[in-house]
């Protein structure tokens, strides 16, 4: 159970970074950390003690395969995470060009 709790703490650390950092790049890093913890969590769920990777090989007697479904989900989620990061970075460098800084507090055209 400890490993699940550690994984959730990693998620919270990422969330903390996203909510309290003022630097756009740091926010992107916080997002990556949150994503990593989600991937780890899904992979942890599918693990079976003494299981083998879900690839059929000759010469194994009654193998117990770990659950392939969470792995497929993580694979999808990794690509989604890559897409999110790319979009965030594109906006971040555009903002840097307009404002000359990564500081989120100086980016405040919209108020109220």
């Amino acid at each position, binding site marked *: *159970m*400890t*490993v*699940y*709790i*550690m994984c959730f*703490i*990693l998620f*919270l*650390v990422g969330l*903390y*970074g996203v909510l*309290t950092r003022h*630097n756009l*790049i*740091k926010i992107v*890093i*916080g997002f*990556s*950390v949150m994503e990593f913890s989600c*991937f*780890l969590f899904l*992979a*942890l*769920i*599918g*693990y*079976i*003690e003494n299981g083998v*990777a*879900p*690839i*059929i090989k000759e010469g194994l007697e009654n193998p117990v395969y*770990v*659950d*392939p*479904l969470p*792995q*497929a989900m*993580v*694979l*999808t989620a*990794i*690509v*989604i995470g*890559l*897409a*999110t*990061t*790319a*979009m965030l*970075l*594109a*906006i971040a*460098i*555009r903002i*840097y060009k307009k404002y000359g*800084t*990564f*500081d989120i507090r100086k980016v405040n055209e919209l108020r109220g």
Partner: protein
Amino acid sequence: METLLSILTGFMIIGALYALHARDLLSALIAQGIVGYGLVISFLLLQAPDLAIVQIVVETITLIIMVAVVLNSSREEIVESWNRNKVLNIISSLVIILFMAFVFAYMIVSLQPFGEHTMRMADYYTGAGAESTGSANLVTGVLFDFRGYDTLGEATILFTAALGVVTILRAKNKKEQKS
């Protein structure tokens, strides 16, 4: 196994904390890389070679792009002075994190412990998946046959992101006015 993974996750947490507080953005990115590659090792330990190979490639490319962005703009982290507000912020976030972790720990007690997973939907995948899809790699079998529709969505998301990045980064946004 669980202890090993816990220690690894602990290192990842430290790496993440360093990445979030580093003064130099480049070292922050390297620390983030540590977290990402730590995840690769965890995937290998968890018998998920597919994930490890995708994660290692994706992490590398993300790092290249992020380093390129940082090197072309500013490496400096915004300097914040230590004042009462900041200390208060850190303490309150710490309290919230500990509280949430405690709630989480209380909540997962009744669920299956680590390593004793049972399968319901995936039973068929590991049992007869290889015969019915013909793919020796069950993850690929699940990804492209049982859940092929999801994979189409996933490829579409990457397409959307590429289109979005091109749209956001175009130099001119309006056509010249015909007077």
